[in-house]
C-alpha cells in the first residue's frame, strides 16, 4: 500500500477492499441494521462520519500517541466521536435514532473503525487517512444499502419505506429476520467474490500490526514476526 496513489486509497474501500464483503468487518451492524434501506443508509453515513473524523485525528496524533497506550487513545477518540454523532442524530434525526437503536452507540466497537485507525491512520498522512476514511465509509454504506435493498424489497415488498405493490403478495418475510440476513450476507459475499474472481486483497498486503495472531501466523507481510510493541 506504500505506493498507492490518492485515488486508489479512496476507491479501494468501495470495492476491492470493501470492509463488509471482502474484509468481513462490522458484520454485527451489517446484519442488524439492514432490514430497511433508510436505516442502512443512516448507519453507513454515521459510521462514515465517525471513521473520517477518527482517521483524521488519529493520523494527526500518530507521532504524539505512545505505542503503549495507543489502543485506549484510539478508543477514547472513537467513542468521543460516536457520542457526538449519536447526540446529533438524536437531536436532528429522531426517527433514524429510533430505528438504529443501540447499534448507533455500538459504532464504538465497530471493527472497521478501530481496524482502520490501527492499520492505516496510525501509519499514513492526514490526507491519505481522510481519503481512506471516506472510501471505507462509502464502501460500508454501499454494502449496507445493497444488502438492505435485497432484504427490504424481497422481504418487506418496499423500498426506503415506499411500498412496491406488485411484490406485496410474494414477499419473503424470512429475509427481514436475522437468519434471512445471514443468508443474504452469504450470497452477496459469494457474488462479490465471483465478480473479483476471488482476487481479494492479497494477505501479504495487510499490515499485521493489529492482528492478534501475528505471532504465529506466517502468511502476512510480517512473516510471523510480530512487530515490536
Amino acid at each position, binding site marked *: 500500500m506504500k505506493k498507492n496513489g490518492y485515488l486508489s486509497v479512496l476507491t479501494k474501500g468501495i470495492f476491492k477492499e470493501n470492509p463488509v464483503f471482502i474484509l468481513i468487518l462490522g458484520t454485527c451492524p451489517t446484519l442488524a441494521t439492514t432490514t430497511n434501506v433508510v436505516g442502512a443508509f443512516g448507519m453507513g453515513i454515521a459510521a462514515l462520519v465517525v471513521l473520517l473524523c477518527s482517521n483524521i485525528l488519529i493520523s494527526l496524533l500518530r507521532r504524539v500517541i505512545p505505542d503503549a497506550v495507543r489502543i485506549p487513545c484510539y478508543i477514547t477518540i472513537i467513542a468521543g466521536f460516536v457520542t457526538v454523532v449519536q447526540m*446529533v442524530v*438524536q437531536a436532528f434525526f429522531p426517527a433514524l435514532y429510533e430505528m438504529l437503536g443501540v447499534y448507533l452507540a455500538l459504532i464504538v466497537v465497530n471493527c472497521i473503525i478501530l481496524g482502520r485507525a490501527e492499520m492505516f491512520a496510525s501509519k499514513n498522512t492526514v490526507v491519505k487517512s481522510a481519503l481512506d476514511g471516506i472510501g471505507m465509509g462509502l464502501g460500508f454504506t454501499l454494502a449496507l444499502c445493497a444488502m438492505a435493498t435485497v432484504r427490504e424489497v424481497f422481504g418487506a415488498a418496499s423500498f426506503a419505506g415506499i411500498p412496491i405493490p406488485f411484490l406485496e403478495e410474494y414477499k419473503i418475510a424470512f429475509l427481514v429476520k436475522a437468519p434471512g440476513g445471514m443468508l443474504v450476507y452469504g450470497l452477496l459475499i459469494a457474488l462479490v467474490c465471483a465478480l473479483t474472481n476471488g482476487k481479494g486483497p492479497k494477505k501479504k498486503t495487510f499490515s499485521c500490526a493489529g492482528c492478534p495472531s501475528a505471532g504465529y501466523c506466517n502468511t502476512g507481510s510480517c512473516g510471523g514476526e510480530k512487530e515490536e510493541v
Partner: protein
Amino acid sequence: MKKSIKNVLVLVSICAVVSVLMAITNAITAPIIAKNESANANKALLEVMPDGKTFDKVDISMYTLPATVSEAYRAETGGYVFKLTTTGYSSGFVIMCGVNTDGTVSGAVCLASTETLGYEKTFGDLLTGKNAENIDTVDTVSGATKTTGAYRSAVKDALNAALILGGGSVDIRTEEEILADNLSSALPAAEGKFEKLFIVEELDGVDAVYKAINQTGFVCVIGEQFIGLDESGAVISEVSEETGETAEAAIAKILATETTELTLSDYEGLPSQLVSAERTATGNYIILIKGAGYGIIGGDDYHPASGEYIYIRVSLTKDGKIIDCLTVSEEETDGVGSACADESFYGQFVGKTEETYEDIDAISGATLTTDGYKKAILRAFTCVKIFEGGVEN
C-alpha cells in the same frame, strides 16, 4: 519513568479534549432532544385533542378528582386531557380522553387494555362530541356491557374532572358515599359503620332507619333529612320539633318491638316454601320465605343452575301490606339474576299489597329470577291470610 509519564499525559489530554468536544455537542443538542421527547409524549395527547398544540401537566394532587383520573394535562387552548385508569372486563384499562372548554369530549382512545371483544378500540368515537348531559344517550354495546360501561363512566369522570379543574364543583361521590357521609354526620359516634334496619312496624313519615353497628344509636331518614338519635332513642341532631318527634316515635316503636315465633304446624295449608314466621306485639308478621328462581328451575350449558333458592324476608301488616322486604341470600346468575339482591329491586315491594305487588320493574334478562321472586311474595301474602284465619288453603 519518563516514558510512563508521557503515556499518562497523552491519554489524559486526549480524554480532556474529547470531553470538551462532547460537552459542546451536548450543550447544543440537549435542548433539541428534550423538545423532541416532549413532542413525542404529546402525540397521544394530540390524538384526543388535535387543536391542543402544547400541553402542561397538571398536578392532580392539588384537586379532589374522580379516582379513575391518573394524569391530567392542560392544553394551550384551555381544554384538558385526562389519562384514566379503570376496570372493564379486566383491570388495567387505560383511556386517554380530551375535554374541550365547552365541556364536550374532544376525543377518547384506549391506550392499553386486556378487554376481550375489542369494543374499547372503537367505542371512544361514539363518545366524541358528547357532554355531561347527553353522554348517557350513548348505549353500551350489548355483550360488552362491562367494557363499554366502564369506558363511558371513565369518560364521565373526565368530564367531571375538567369541571373541577376549571374551578367548578361537581359531586363526584357515588350514591353509597353520599349516604355514608350523611349517616356519619348525623351520628358521628357510630364511626361510619351502620346497618340498615329491617323494618317490622309501620313507621309514619320515616323512610328508613339505620342502626350504628357499635350500638351508639340510630339514624332516621325522613325525606332529605338525616336525624341522629342516641341508643335510648333521644334526638341528638338539630331538627325541628315536629321532625324530631316523628323520629323519636319511630325509634320508640322499634325499641318496643317484641316478636313471637309462630309454630308452623299449627296452621294448615301453609306453602312449603315458608321457612319461618314471626308475629310482633302489634300484630305484624315477619316472614322468611324461599323463592324458586333460575337457581332452581333454570340452567343451561353456559350458566348452570346453582340449586339454591332465593331467601326473602318480608314484613307485612295483618292486612297484607308490605312494610319491608329484603333479599337474605341468593345464588342466581352473577351479574344478571344476582340483581335481585340489590335494594333497587327488592325495595320496590315496600308498600305493595296483593293487588299491586306485580307492578314492579323486572330484572332485565332475568325473567326466571323475577318470576320466582314475585311468586314468593305472593305466597307471603297467602301466609298472612292463613295466619289471620282468613283463608282455608
